[in-house]
């Protein structure tokens, strides 16, 4: 493998990983607050169509990203209201949210599929043209945003008071409540943040990967993001590594087949199943280690029901 090819592979892997990284980062914060939102795929699709329409109408990519985030927040509020204010079952509500987002985005996108837009260009056009340095500096702002958010979320969870409260709410909602924190309020913020990130992750499809709108164009990557959060055992830096690993798995299959060689003999179905199987294995491994700090947030998926 030549250096050029390695660089090219890295660039493709980074592109393929970015949407699942962004969506998973949002879901990580949601889950750390003790909420399981399985509507990621639906929120991503709403973000994708919003970003497409905005960029098609205005040509402004950054506005498109912003509006995709806003659309994600709006969609996530349906989930938030039902599960937090009305204590509805999170699993069922999340699934309903995915059905909703899939249908809504398809309805809204009618008439936009034959329309071309342009990708968001590299943040540093000069360095992006350099055959070597493009591997570090050749990406669009969405890629750097994802990396920045990894650090920001790590810092938030680990070093800030607000992060501590959020984790407390996810680990033991009743105690957090009894010392005076608003469990529901914190979870609303987390769910909305998750919605914004899923919306931006959806925006990556027309703005970063393939400049068009197609119904269901996220093609299940919202579920990979859900898997990734678990795979990373709810840790931001492991999430980063996991996202690039999943991206590598998804992309290597294509490079192997297009270039020939021994890897191309592996059935594509195995490649496709790998992220999910690996996630189950990781779940097992972290459970065997019984390391409390790597386990799932204790309140994950359970409604907050103060017994007063």
């Amino acid at each position, binding site marked *: 493998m030549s250096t050029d090819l390695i660089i090219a592979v890295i660039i493709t892997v980074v592109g393929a990983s970015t949407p699942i990284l962004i969506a998973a980062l949002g879901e990580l914060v949601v889950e750390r607050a003790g909420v399981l939102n399985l509507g990621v795929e639906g929120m991503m699709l709403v973000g994708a169509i919003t970003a497409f329409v905005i960029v098609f109408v205005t040509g402004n990519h950054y506005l498109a990203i912003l509006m995709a985030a806003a659309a994600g927040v709006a969609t996530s509020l349906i989930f938030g209201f039902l599960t937090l204010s009305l204590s509805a079952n999170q699993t*069922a509500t999340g699934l*309903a949210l995915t059905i909703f987002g899939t249908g809504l985005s398809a309805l809204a996108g009618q008439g936009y599929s034959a329309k071309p837009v342009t990708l968001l260009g590299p943040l540093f056009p000069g360095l992006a043209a350099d055959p070597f340095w493009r591997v570090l500096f050749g990406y669009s702002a969405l890629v750097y945003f994802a990396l920045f958010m990894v650090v920001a979320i790590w810092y938030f969870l680990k070093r800030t008071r607000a992060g501590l409260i959020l984790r407390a709410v996810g680990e033991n909602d009743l105690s957090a409540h009894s010392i005076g924190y608003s469990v529901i309020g914190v979870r609303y913020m987390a769910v909305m943040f998750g919605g914004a990130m899923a919306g931006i992750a959806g925006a990556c499809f027309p703005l970063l990967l393939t400049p068009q709108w197609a119904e269901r164009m996220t093609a299940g990557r919202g579920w990979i993001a859900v898997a990734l959060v678990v795979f990373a055992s709810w840790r931001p830096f492991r999430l980063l590594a996991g996202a690039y690993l999943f991206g590598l798995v998804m992309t290597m299959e294509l490079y192997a087949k297009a270039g020939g060689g021994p890897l191309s003999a592996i059935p594509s*179905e195995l490649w496709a199943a790998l992220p999910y199987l690996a996630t*189950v294995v990781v779940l097992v491994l972290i459970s065997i280690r019984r390391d409390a700090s790597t386990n799932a947030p204790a309140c994950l998926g359970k409604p907050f029901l103060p017994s007063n």
Partner: protein
Amino acid sequence: MQFRLEKRREPSQAMVYATPVAAVVLTMVVGAILFSLIGYDGVGAVREIFLTPLTNSFKWQDLGVKAAPLIIIGTGLSIAYRANVWNIGAEGQYIMGGLAATWVALATYGMTGWWILPLMLVAGVLGGAAYAAIPALLKTRLNVNEILTSLMLTYASVQLIYYLVRAPWKDPMGMGFPQTRIFSEAARLPTIIPTTIVHLGVPIAIVVALVAWFVMSRSVFGYQMKVVGAAPHAARYGGFSENKTIWLALLVSGGLAGMAGMLEVAGPFQRMVPGFPTNYGFTAIIVAFLGRLNPLGVIFAGIVMAITFVGGEVAQTSIGLSNSATGVFQAMMLFFLLAGDILIRYRIRRVAPQAAGVAP
């Protein structure tokens, strides 16, 4: 004017039955208004999606065939959820049941005999139960969250279908298309009403739900599931094993999902194709909730969901409503239903504006 929620002393039985009905009615009203506002024929859409499948007798057979797998899987899930075991991988267990039954059908290809279908049914149930045993084992041994494992395994099982029908099980006469051969006559589910498509799976679904209702409401098993689900600590004092309950919940729900997979592949499909996973397993989660985790309610809920699917296609052919609109209607119905849950445990009180509201 402000409202506040006030906890009821006991869950309201009236609301258990009233809220699903209210959810359906609200969906029809709000859906008609919303879709009219955005420029569709809202009233027509509601009529075609919710009413035509009921009023047109040609559609009844479709409702039965579409509802049957939803009822069977939904029944299993309602039992598991009662026990507080969150199996959301029914789609994967349905797939594994279908694959196990397909394996029997292909192994007995060309043979005849009454025993082939029962053998396929056993294989289907075992296939589904075996796949559900993985989350059960991980949950009971290692305390791994069953929501996550069962979901991940679903996505892996979809790939297994793709692989099997593309390579080892591919129909030798199928012009290279990724699908198995059509099962022989003995491996196909008989139609029970001549000139219709109603197959044996439809009465089986009703029987399964009735048996489950009886078991859940009249037997120790049902009592154990409900007690462990509602009050695990109390259950432990009462001598009920939580692990045993988890195993039972997953094996029963997985086995029933596998049974539905067998009935689908032997009935409507009659061969394994990549399009076999049609989200019955996920839709059945919704059915279980719509049916209030009660097997009798699941029958009703399965039929309601079937109406929206069948009606969605009617609306496409008759008034040109796009397929995605049906999804929006279904999601809306679920949102209303889930929102209504709160009324079982709480009542709404009107309070003076200056009083501190509890609601968000």
